């Protein structure tokens, strides 16, 4: 029954979403569990920001020491 509903849902989203997003939805439905680990999807961005945050913080610390 659930499988039938999922098939119906994918059919439903194909009418209103882009192809890329439909693929993404299919991926989510395949891997969905109760705690929905969608955070993994954000992990790359998080790491990129962390790197930049560290660089900016270090530069600002250096500027503080040097100029204040």
């Amino acid at each position, binding site marked *: 029954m659930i499988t039938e509903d999922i098939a119906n849902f994918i059919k439903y989203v194909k009418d209103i979403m882009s192809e890329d997003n439909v693929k993404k939805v299919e991926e989510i439905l395949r891997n969905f569990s109760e705690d929905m680990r969608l*955070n993994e999807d954000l992990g790359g961005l998080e790491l990129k920001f962390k790197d930049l945050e560290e660089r900016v913080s270090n530069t600002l610390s250096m500027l503080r020491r040097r100029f*204040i």
Partner: protein
Amino acid sequence: MILKSIAIEGFKGISNRIELELSPKLTVFFGPVAYGKSSILEAILWCLSCNSLESGDWRKIQKIFEDIEIINLRKPKAEVKIEYEHNGNEYVMFAETKTEKGYGFKAYDSGIFKELSVGELEITPFVRVLTTAQIRKFEFSEDLEALNVVFGITFWKKLADSCDKLAETIHDKEREIIEKVISWKTELEKIYTGVLKRYEEIAEKIKAENISLENIKRNLKELTNEDIDQYSLDDLLSFVRQMTNPYHGKLSELEKEIRRRQNELEQLKIKCNEIESRIHKIKQTLNEIQPKLEELISQPSIEILENEVKKLEKTYRSIVEYITNLGEEKRNIESEKFRKNRELSSLRASYNRTLMLERELNTINAKLREFDDQDLDKKWEELKNKLSQLYEQKEQLEEKLGEESKIVEVIEQAIELMKDDVCIICGEKGGLTKAKERCEILKRKKEDDYKRLEEIKKEIEEHDKLLGSIEAQIKRRNELMNKAKAIQQSIDSELKRIGVNTLNELEEKINSIVDEINTLDDRISKINEEIKNKEGEKKEIYRKLREIRNKIFRVSSIRDEINSLLGKIGINAWNLSLNDLQLKINELKDELQSLESEREILHKKITEIEKSINSLKDKQRKLEIEENLFDGKKSELVRQISDLMEYEEYKEKIEELESVIDVLLQDFNKINQILREYEEKRLFYLMLSKTVKAFMSMLVRQKLDEFNELVNKFYRSLYEHPEFKEIRIKFDQRYRIAVIDSSGNEVGYEEILNTSARNAVRIAISSACSYYGLGRSEFNLLIIDEPQLYLDSKHKEKFIKDFLPLIYEKCQVILATADKEFWDYIKQYKPKEAKLYEIKSWSLKDGPMIEEVL
């Protein structure tokens, strides 16, 4: 999956173990209230719940069973075992309590129950013990949310919730990044602005003051002859800082010379002051000593004065001794006089007292003599006799009057009885007349006697009064006699105590003592006169003594003062004779002259040194001006070099800072790119959530159409309402129950349906849940406790006859009831496979006694 049998021990009201087989279609327990029916139903639910949960989820058990005491009072733990069948195979599951409170549990399942798609039983409508309280729960939309499980949309709901949560998380992250970037940019701006401001300030200063390396070098050459053409700014700064002021050394030598002269001047002044002080002291001492010395010379010597004092003291002591002896004699006479005076006072007091007593005695005797003429005793005797006679007469008359009264009374009584003039006693003719005459005579006599008696009484009264008066006078006389006797005794006793016989003798004794006292007074007067004379002599000698002693004291004081004054200037004159003292004073005068000439010389020296110091100080002031000019030029050069160096430094800093900012701006652009990517993701999840919710609503509405048909089928089989024959569950974000009237209009559920109808609605929904679940689950069980509540006889029969067959055909049903009528209908309409149990009795010790009804 079908439950085959159940074994229960120590659970709620069931203490001893019971084992019961269950029907695949319908099992019913009948028995009075509080006989353990509900305990059996709850035991089934408990065992199923424990086996659908992890053993650590005891809080969920606590939530399902709320305040129920799971363990029986007589047992240490509760145990439930269920045997079940699935796909032709048989399995066992059991549960037992682990803790005393009863919510902790151990469970075991040999089959696949946990893997069936029933989910967690606490929210599953497929398996449900519908006690009255739990049925009532369907009034709340939260309970209706269980339909999500029935319709299988829990997945979509969780998906939508997760998407919303994720979008929210991304939004939080975006906000966090933006806040950080703003804070970084603000800080960067602050740093750059700070550096730029300082750079502009210093540049403006350099321009305004025309500061340059060439100008500095030129100014420096004017101060020093060093070759500095090749020096950098750093070299120049250290060179200028190390430059020494040439005026320092000259000033230092000059200061040393001034200090040396000042010290010399100071020493001379100290010495001059010492001489001055010595001169002043000597002059002051000589001035003070001179008059004292003259006075000392004019007085006799202390030795002569002291001899005179000794003589006068001897005379003084002999007069004092004589006065003391006179005083002693005077005190003895005064003591004798005092004794005599006391004796005289005592005798005078006795004399006065005796005299007063004698006067009183004379007065009493005069009064007693008045009684002598009256002869009171004789009068009293006569009156006493007269009174005796009168009392005797009175008694005789009273007796006579009594007799006469009795006779008159008898005659009057007889007269009353006499009709004719005949005596009633003796029969004598004319008796009545005689009797009346006799009675009249007697009455007159009686009146006379009565008058006489009154006269006697009056006479007695008068004599009594007279007798009382005489007795009072006798009493008064006796009292006076006694008093006179007592006074005479007091007089005799007083005279005897003094040692005289009469008052005259006492008077003579008093006069003799008065004479003695007068003699003593004369003697005292003479002694007093003698003492007075001697006191005068004593006083005169004492005055002379004091005068000489004052002289001695004065001479000693003058000598002490002179010695003390000389001592203050360091001359010891305490043992010197008067001549030696005069020689010492002459020596002092010589010393004074010598000191005055030395002071003159010192004054000249001091004036010379002061002049030389003033000349040196003028020189020092000129050098200090030169020195300050040099230092000012040096400081100005240092400041100019420092400003120029700072300008160069800030120029470099600005260039460095701008290059760092370029790099940071690139990083900020990268962060903006990350933010755009986050936002894209957030929008995607929001869209997905919205889509899922729309799809879920569509799905629920489709499924509700089918479900509502089923609900109404059960509702109609349970209950017949004349107007409201249809109910409908609606969904608009949440579930709600609506009632449709015969015209197809929707009306309020709570307001329209009565308790029985509402009960039927809830059972219909619960049944529909279990029934609808058949296509989606492999385990369908409906357990209802007291389903007949609020149902009338007709609907009780309808429940058994029409409703139950619909449900137990596809779903295992277990019921419990205490209603006899409902039980009878069950027995009447039960299916062939049904298992019916009747609970006959219940006790705390043994639990329920159950019999199967065949």
